[in-house]
């Protein structure tokens, strides 16, 4: 059986691959959405923090002999703490000003961080081996699915849903959302709002670092890996609706699928299709598919 000249078997394979790439989009755009939704900061350092996650995993392995699984736990913590330091020392001073200042600061920081890593490690990238337990793969009939990629989809879905649950369904999440709406009132109830904001930024950064560790075995650990991805991820966030948690998750996976299909039917357009969709969405629904006008 064929659809538009492509055998359905091959199409299944491509859809699955789209889903894998979508996992990364979802994880990264989720972090951005958390930071924007709760702090109103457009975090352009996100790509650099994703890259730092991958490098952190690499350092842990080569300098300390700490393997993939521990890196998965330690890296988000370490990079998250660096994020919190950045928030305390720099971002916290900009909350009174327009969004644009936060954007400029984080953009500049991203350039500096990437430049430092590029100077030291070049652009060819460094290999990071697949964890032993997840090497190999299985034949699904329509494609050969590497075990590691299956793990990426699984881990990404679990982390995304857990984050959504925490923010939308728990008491902690309720505090967070309340603090965004009316910080003075929440502070009056005895909740330490600045600390909560710092922790939230740290959490968003940790999500980026987590995605970085997930990406390390698939791509080369490369100083530019985040710069290449961040623009696409921003488009995903815009399409999903700035700040919408569920929006960013669903859009992340959906755009991965659409991009995957483009790679089959018209591969030349595969790196522009997301921006075409973004333009269309902005014309029809400027707040994004899941966003609400503020």
């Amino acid at each position, binding site marked *: 059986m064929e659809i538009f000249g492509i055998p359905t078997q091959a199409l299944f*394979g491509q859809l699955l691959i789209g889903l894998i790439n979508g996992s990364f989009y979802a994880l990264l755009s989720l972090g951005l959405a958390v930071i924007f939704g709760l702090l109103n900061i457009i975090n352009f350092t996100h790509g650099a923090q994703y890259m730092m996650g991958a490098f952190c995993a690499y350092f842990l392995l080569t300098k300390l002999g700490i393997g993939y699984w521990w890196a998965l736990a330690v890296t988000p913590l370490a990079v998250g703490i660096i994020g919190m330091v950045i928030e305390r020392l720099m971002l916290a001073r900009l909350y009174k000003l327009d969004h644009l200042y936060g954007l400029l600061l984080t953009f500049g920081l991203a350039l500096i961080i990437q430049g430092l890593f590029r100077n030291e490690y070049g652009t*060819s990238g460094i290999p990071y081996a697949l964890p032993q337990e997840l090497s190999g*793969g299985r034949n699904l009939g329509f494609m050969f699915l590497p075990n590691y990629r299956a793990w990426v989809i699984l881990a990404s879905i679990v982390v995304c849903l857990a984050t959504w649950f925490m923010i939308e369904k728990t008491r902690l999440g309720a505090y967070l959302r309340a603090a965004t709406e009316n910080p003075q009132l929440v502070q009056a109830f005895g909740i330490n709002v600045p600390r909560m904001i710092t922790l939230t930024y740290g959490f968003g950064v940790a999500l980026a670092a987590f995605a970085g560790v997930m990406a390390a075995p*698939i791509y*080369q650990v490369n100083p530019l890996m985040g710069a290449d991805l961040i623009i696409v991820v921003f488009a995903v966030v815009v399409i999903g609706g700035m700040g919408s948690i569920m929006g960013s998750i669903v859009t992340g996976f959906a755009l991965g699928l659409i991009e995957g299909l483009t790679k*089959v039917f018209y*591969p030349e357009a*595969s*790196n522009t299709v997301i921006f075409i969709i973004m333009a269309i969405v902005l014309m029809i629904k400027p707040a994004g598919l899941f966003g609400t006008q503020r």
Partner: protein
Amino acid sequence: MFSNRSIFAAAPLAVAASLAQAQISDGVVKIGVLSDMSSLYSDIGGGGSVVAARMAIADFPTKGIKVELLSADHLNKPDVGSSIARQWYDVDKVDVIVDVPTSSVALAINQITREKGKAFLVSGAASSDLTGKACSPNTIHWTYDTWMLANGTGNAIVKTGGDSWYFITADYAFGLALERDTEAVVLKNGGKVLGKVRHPLNAQDFSSFLLQAQASKAKIIGLANAGGDTTNAIKQAAEFGIVKGGQNLAGLLVFLSDIHGLGLDKAQGLIFTETFYWDLNDQTRAFARRFAAANSGKYPTMVQAGVYSAITHYLKAVEAGKTDDGTKVIAKMKELPTDDPLFGKGRVRIDGRKLHPAYLVEVKKPSESKGPYDYYKIRATIPAEQAFRPLNEGGCSLVK
């Protein structure tokens, strides 16, 4: 964009105004290294090309000619590269532009250089059109080209049984030229091409393209791309079990820096063609050690070696011709035989093609390598006259 000038006076200011100086425009020869300084090709050329240029200027005993070096980043964009080239030629009085990886940028600068009557020495870019239908009396294509890669690697693979191909091609001038030239070699040797897919430059994820290649059942998957695109494709092909499934990869353009980035366990057994390898003889080894010391330990790629060699010959021609007029220097460069420690003896053909031997190399197994950068076994040496496209087949208008 960020035109960081590292002005470098190789020779002390000429004390006596020699005859030579009278014909050097504004009394100084200005060399501009234009490369990818920040993105996927920057380990191939980039800062290393600037190091090589600086070494060439320092090594060449100029008699009373002052040489300055400029460098800039073209971001792999033809419009950015063009505006830097125009600014360099018109405002900064640059006499020669060197390197320029990314064929689309190089083709644009080839045209501008011809309009301005300056000189252009290509090391980083690959498209064989630079000495074919786009050939120019102001351009020399130094290090390698797509025809030579296709001829070296394509021939070797088809002759050892790899007769059905599927191409994964970078969708711009270079990838298309490499695919075209390789396809011609495959067909000429009785092989067939089962399909091709074009991916955008700097694509990161190749799994989709690799699956399409896998479905084609071609024996050989030809990677008509370069730099980070090639390394990601090779790495992900291993992940998807492509080589285990009986298909083989042909990296049509692979550099030393790519192998270093991939690691030998992923890269072992790859066969491809290069025109320079640091471990060829005592002279190349000595050069590589000096180069690495100035380039944070990284060994030279053939592109960086080509920058050194091209500038050496350029300065020789400036000295011999006593002028830095672009068209005249290029003509002089074609007239003089070439000789340098890296590429040996050779010559520059009328169409602008520099001729030297090419090497068919195979990547060593991890057990065979003595350490970092000990990566290649030389399988065959292709003599200079056979390594490049015959003069009459390129369609260059300078060939009568």
